[in-house]
Each structure stands twice: as structure tokens, then as C-alpha cells.
């Protein structure tokens, strides 16, 4: 086997493509509906309505852009993360530098979150402001090899630009919940009357967002296995922290998709999870371990 093909998963790529295509179609539908509204308003000479449609058309890219630009910073703040200086944790910075160099990435900064649930996530809008945040519990519980595996997972999220992809994938779902939250009670009643029209689209958006998040987890797990050369290190880290962890303090931060284990850890059907079930992640890693066991030609 060629090493870069290790753990390469064609069915996963197909499912990811399907999810992305449907999400893209939802964007396109929203765009076309607004455009249609704009054209008909313009035909009727209703300037006010036309401007309203133009505003909403501009809102879509603007909201995505703002979320992309500020989402990471907001997440760090919401989680009360403190960025550490190099001299506070030289070993951690050295470890991150090694893994990053192996991935041919600039080394991200490290931040710490005082929390009793073991978790980590990565944020950043460009290569020079990326940060990996670790909870104190994670730093306490994991040995250096396991920590290296977690860093490999987070650096893979950054290398694959998962923040960007997940912003795109969660756009429709975020728009749905924002529209609902901003409505007053009377408007909500009106929305409910039209539920058969939008509810299926909203439900689909949320399910697709979660499925994208799960797919990216598998990809980041594989990245970690390749970077560290040792899938079993991530397996042992996940076995320690990937079961049902205490209710996370990261829940409010809205970045569960970039966490090493879900920040909403309550057991539920896989369809409703933003991370794959632990057993499945361990299974895949075991498969990668087996594949690398073959002699190389």
C-alpha cells in the first residue's frame, strides 16, 4: 500500500460529496427564491420590498464571512480560553511544533480552558492565527503520546480547513435557528402555520450539518494516525476521554464540530450526533493500524 492511501475511504468521500451537494442546493434554492422575490418586487415597482430582498441576498455571504472571521475568537472567549505563552508550557509547544512540522503546517498557539471535561478544539481563520485549546482535564488525564495524537487530530482539522467547511455546512441550519429566535410570538405562530413548508428543509439542514461534522471527524482521526504514525495513541486517548464525559462547558461555544470529542456528549441516535460513536471511531483506527501492518511495496 502507498502510505498516503492508508485509511482512504471512498464510500466516506461519496457520502461527503452527497451531503455537500444537498447543502449547496439549499443555498441555491434560498438564493433563487430571494432573486425571484426581487424580480417580482421590481416588476411591481415596489422599491421597499426590492431593497429588502437585496438586503437578504447580501446577508448570506456577509453572515458566512462574519461567522468565519469571528467564530473562532468568539468560541475561545465563550470557552474562557487563555492563550499560553511559550515559556509557560515549553514541552507542549515543542510537541505541537513537531506535529505541525510533520504536517507541513506552521505551529498553532496553545490555549487552556479550566474545565472538568476532557476536550480540545482548534480554531483559526488563516495559517498565522490558529490556536488549539485544551481543557485542563485533558492535559491532566492524557500522557504525552495521547496528547500528541489529540494534537494530530486538531492539526488535521486545521490543515483540512474544517472551520471553513463547517461554517458553510452549518449555514442553512444557523440561518433557520436565527430566523426563529429573532421572531416575536405572533410571527412564530405564523411560522408554525407554514411549518410543512420549511420544517423539512430545516430538519434536513441540521441533519446534514451533523453528518458533515461526523465525516470530518473520521478524516481528522485518520490524519492524526498518519501524523503520529501510531493509530493506537489516538485510540487510547479516545478510550480515556471519548466515552460519555461530564456535561461539557464547551457546549455554549458552538464549536463542537472542531472538538476532539463531542461537547454534547449525551447518548443519542447516530443520526443526531455531531461526532461518530466512539466504537466506530475506534474501529476505523484499528483498520488503519491493520493496514499499516502490511509490508510496504
Amino acid at each position, binding site marked *: 500500500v502507498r502510505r498516503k492511501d492508508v485509511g482512504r475511504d471512498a464510500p466516506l468521500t461519496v457520502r461527503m460529496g452527497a451531503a455537500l451537494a444537498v447543502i449547496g442546493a439549499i443555498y441555491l434554492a434560498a438564493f433563487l427564491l430571494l432573486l425571484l422575490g426581487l424580480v417580482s418586487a421590481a416588476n411591481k415597482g415596489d422599491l421597499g420590498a426590492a431593497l429588502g430582498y437585496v438586503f437578504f441576498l447580501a446577508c448570506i455571504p456577509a453572515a458566512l464571512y462574519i461567522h468565519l472571521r469571528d467564530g473562532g475568537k468568539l468560541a475561545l472567549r465563550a470557552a474562557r480560553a487563555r492563550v499560553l505563552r511559550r515559556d509557560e508550557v515549553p514541552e507542549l509547544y515543542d510537541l505541537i511544533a*513537531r506535529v505541525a512540522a510533520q504536517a507541513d503546517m506552521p505551529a498553532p498557539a496553545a490555549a487552556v480552558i479550566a474545565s472538568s471535561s476532557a476536550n480540545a478544539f482548534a480554531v483559526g481563520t488563516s495559517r498565522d492565527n490558529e490556536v488549539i485549546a485544551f481543557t485542563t482535564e485533558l492535559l491532566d488525564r492524557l500522557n504525552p503520546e495521547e496528547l*500528541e495524537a489529540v494534537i494530530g487530530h486538531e492539526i488535521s482539522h486545521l490543515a483540512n480547513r474544517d472551520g*471553513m467547511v463547517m461554517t458553510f455546512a452549518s449555514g442553512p441550519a444557523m440561518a433557520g435557528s436565527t430566523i426563529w429566535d429573532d421572531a416575536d410570538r405572533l410571527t412564530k405562530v405564523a411560522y408554525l402555520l407554514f411549518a410543512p413548508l420549511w420544517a423539512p428543509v430545516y430538519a434536513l439542514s441540521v441533519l446534514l450539518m451533523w453528518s458533515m461534522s461526523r465525516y470530518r471527524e473520521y478524516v481528522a482521526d485518520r490524519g492524526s494516525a498518519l501524523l503520529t504514525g501510531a493509530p493506537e495513541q489516538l485510540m487510547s486517548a479516545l478510550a480515556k476521554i471519548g466515552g460519555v464525559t461530564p456535561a461539557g462547558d464547551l457546549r455554549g461555544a458552538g464549536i463542537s464540530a472542531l472538538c476532539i470529542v463531542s461537547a454534547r456528549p449525551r447518548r443519542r441516535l447516530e443520526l443526531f450526533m455531531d461526532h461518530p460513536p466512539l466504537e466506530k471511531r475506534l474501529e476505523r483506527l484499528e483498520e488503519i493500524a491493520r493496514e499499516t501492518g502490511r509490508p510496504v511495496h
Partner: protein
Amino acid sequence: MGLGDVLFGRKKLKGSNLDKLFALSTAQLTLETEVGLKPSGVAAVVFKPLSAGEFMQAERDIDELLAVAARDSGSRVTRRSDNFGFQWLVIRDSDFEDLVTTTHLVSSELDARGFGGQLLAALFAFRGGDHPVYLIYGYKRGTFWPFVPTGEDQERDNAEELRLKSELESELPIEPDLTRWLALFDAPLD
């Protein structure tokens, strides 16, 4: 990385670029006479072995490789490992050109055995001014950078490193992005 690679998370583990290693043998004379860097006769290839299933096969491969390298070059090659789980193949040869050649041979053998993505850096030791000076070659980027640890507490002599950068730039492909100048403290060269 193209859009498709972003959408599908296909960023690959970058392979190794060995081509620029030989620039070091060409630059040797300048290093010694103009920059004042005298080779210590030691170099190392740093890489991450794959553990788990591949471990046994890899062990055999590397042992075989060391035997080949020793036979072909007359350099002495030993194995060490560090706290980060990286393997160091430490190469000794009093002739600098042979040292570079063996380093290249060891790297390309590792590459041919499928470890290309696992190669992190090659390190060449020099006797400089106050502190030992290392030139590190990053396989991913195909560039060199100077590394001057002061020996105190993971400190590095940034001023000296930058001075060396400006002196070496005309001789060697020096990594332009300073954030990529990976430090390799506690090199197990002894």
C-alpha cells in the same frame, strides 16, 4: 490544496524532498572558510517510525538499511530515540562530503521503503562560536535553517541564527518563513 481537497478533507501527508540536501556539500568550503562553521562529523536523520502493525516490518527494514549504509559508505550509523517518540539515525563520518552522501542515502532508502511522509528533518552539527551550531534540513520544505541552542533551558540564540541566515543565503536554500524554523532541542547525538 485545491477546493476539492478542502471540501473532501484530502490534505495529504507531504512527501519528502531530498534534492536540496547536496547543496550542503557544495557549500562546505564557504561554510568553513567564510562563515567559520567547522563540521563536527555528526549528522542525524530524524523521522517518526510507524508503530502498531508495521512496527516489526519497519524494525527489520531499518536494521537492513543501517547495514547497507554502513557497507556502502564507511560511515558509522547508530539508532537513538528521543522523548517525542522520534527515531534518530545518527551518522558519523569525519569526511563531510561522505557525511552528506550517507545522510542522503539513508533518507532516500527510508523514502523508498515508504517512510517519506514520516521524515521530519536532517540535522548537521558544526562547531561555531560560543555554542554548537546545527543546520537543519526540513524534508517537507526542501530548505535549511540554522539552529543555535544556548544550552540553557531550551533557549535559542536568535541573533546568531539570523546572522547565519544572512551569511548562508547565497550558498544554501534557506527557509524564508521564520515560523517554520523548527527547534530540535536535546539532540541525542552522543
